[in-house]
């Protein structure tokens, strides 16, 4: 074979490979959920990577953080630059690996972890796993998080090549899949998702009797890993229980967390017991009968929490930093626009 023929053959092979790989890549992108207008919670984790990473405060946890705390209020009223790394039913080991991931980029002054996730000691549900894990950038933390999170039916390779998982989604493709094929849209305000509708909390059931009220070993081990990682990095760890009325927060659970916080010198705030301080009115400040707060509730809670953070942790007021203030000006405008859009849509519904 002459040198030219060999060169030509090599080129053909390379071109063919490129075409196949590009086609597979395109198919993967097309068939994977976009989480931009539907199931937007699946888009929360990825958004962090587009941020300027000099936050003072990072929240980690499940819907009890991304629906209940407003970073915009923390900024506007206290000059605290915060971000929520939360996703739906985010399990404690997922929060730990997200914290690991976050600390690759920045070292905040404080990390806030919502303790409801202590109730889960085992992987739960693939759909939630995917919404948390797919948005993470590839790293050792992501690999370990996937391995810790997979249910028995899941396969690691499906996370590496999502096409393997979503190949049958072709029949469910919607306009969103075409519209956000190449670029997604913002779905949160520094990790916070906004709701303005109101649904009063009524008939909230008490918890069922449990055979065992002790948190599982795995949950404890990851809480300890979170604490040690924060300690190693010089980050203050704050534990919170958001004021969601359901799922039920058992007194036995409360006792275990209080003991842990006391033994380790951690600040722990159970906002369920701080109604007077937060001013939350469950007849107006929740959009789903007490499971999550609406914007009014989230802003009240954040106002109260910001005050505590400043008083007890001494977080610096950074509103005087020009570049940061300019970034927040844009963020606040987007927040306000989203709020107005919600109000307009609600008044349309009520008309």
């Amino acid at each position, binding site marked *: 074979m002459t040198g030219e023929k*060999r060169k030509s053959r*090599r080129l053909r*092979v*390379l071109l063919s*490979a490129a075409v*196949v*790989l590009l086609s*597979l890549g395109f198919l993967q992108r097309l068939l994977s959920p976009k989480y931009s207008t539907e*199931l937007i*919670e*699946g888009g929360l984790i990825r958004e962090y990577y587009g941020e300027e990473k000099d936050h003072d405060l990072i929240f980690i946890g*499940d*819907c009890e953080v991304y*629906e209940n705390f407003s970073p915009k209020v923390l900024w506007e009223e206290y000059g605290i630059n915060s971000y929520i790394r939360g996703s*739906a*039913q985010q399990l404690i080991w997922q929060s730990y690996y997200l914290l690991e991931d976050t600390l690759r980029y920045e070292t905040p002054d404080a990390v806030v972890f919502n303790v409801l996730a202590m109730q889960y000691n085992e992987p*739960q*549900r*693939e*759909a*939630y796993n*995917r*919404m948390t894990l797919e948005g993470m950038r590839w790293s050792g933390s992501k690999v370990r998080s996937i391995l810790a999170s997979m249910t028995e*039916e899941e396969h690691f*390779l499906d996370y590496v*090549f999502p*096409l*393997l*998982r*979503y*190949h*049958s*989604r072709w029949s*469910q493709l919607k306009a969103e899949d075409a519209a956000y094929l190449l670029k997604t849209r913002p779905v949160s305000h520094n990790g916070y998702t906004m709701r303005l509708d109101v649904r009063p909390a*009524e*008939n*909230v*059931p008490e918890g*069922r*009797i*449990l*055979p*065992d009220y002790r948190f599982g070993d795995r949950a404890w081990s990851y809480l300890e890993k979170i604490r040690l990682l924060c300690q190693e990095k010089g980050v203050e760890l704050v534990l919170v229980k958001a004021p969601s009325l*359901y799922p039920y927060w058992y007194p036995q659970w409360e006792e275990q967390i209080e003991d842990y916080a006391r033994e380790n010198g951690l600040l722990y705030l159970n906002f369920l017991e701080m109604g007077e301080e937060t001013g939350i009115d469950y007849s107006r400040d929740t959009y*789903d*009968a007490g*499971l999550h707060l609406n914007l009014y509730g989230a802003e009240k809670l954040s106002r109260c929490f910001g005050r505590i953070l400043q008083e007890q942790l001494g977080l610096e007021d950074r509103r005087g930093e020009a570049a940061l203030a300019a970034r927040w000006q844009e963020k606040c405008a987007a927040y306000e626009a989203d709020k107005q859009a919600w109000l307009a849509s609600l008044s349309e519904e009520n008309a």
Partner: protein
Amino acid sequence: MKKTSLSKTLALLLAVLALLSLAACGGSGEKVIQREAPAESAGPDAALTSENAREETAGAGFVFIHQGVRVDMDAEASAIVAALGEPSSYFEAASCVFEGLDKMYTYGGFELDTYPTDGKDYVSAVIFRDDSVATPEGVMIGDSAEKLQQVYGDPSSTAENLVSYQAGNMELRFILADGVIASIEYLSLAAEGD
């Protein structure tokens, strides 16, 4: 030699990718992320009167019967809820993300829970609240562990204070406290994964 290796590597890579795709396509399960539909929906006929529940439900899972209304796990809930009458209390909980509501109807001595699938609600659990209700086999809250053993025999599994009987795609659980039944729960295993 170098070129041959390159070609081989590329061929291998493509073959692996093709195989992976084929393997995925040839999978037995439809991999759509959504709630698993119940294996069998009892439909509107779920609310039936039964004189002898134990015989009727043998092999199909334990069934709760209240005032002649039969409540199978994973049965469509609308007819059952209608037959049970007005609940004393009602609560619904949306999941963090997915459409549909988990619903909780509280009656005299028990709670009936449902989960949504494809626009319909199915029974996910019956939880006893007090000793005003009993299982069709005659066991109620406050009974002893010995009575439980006599009536139901050897459990499928036990753990700490939990005695569990699995049948079909459901589980009948008894939670004990100080040797006495403190809670009785009929649970759908199809709904539990949610």
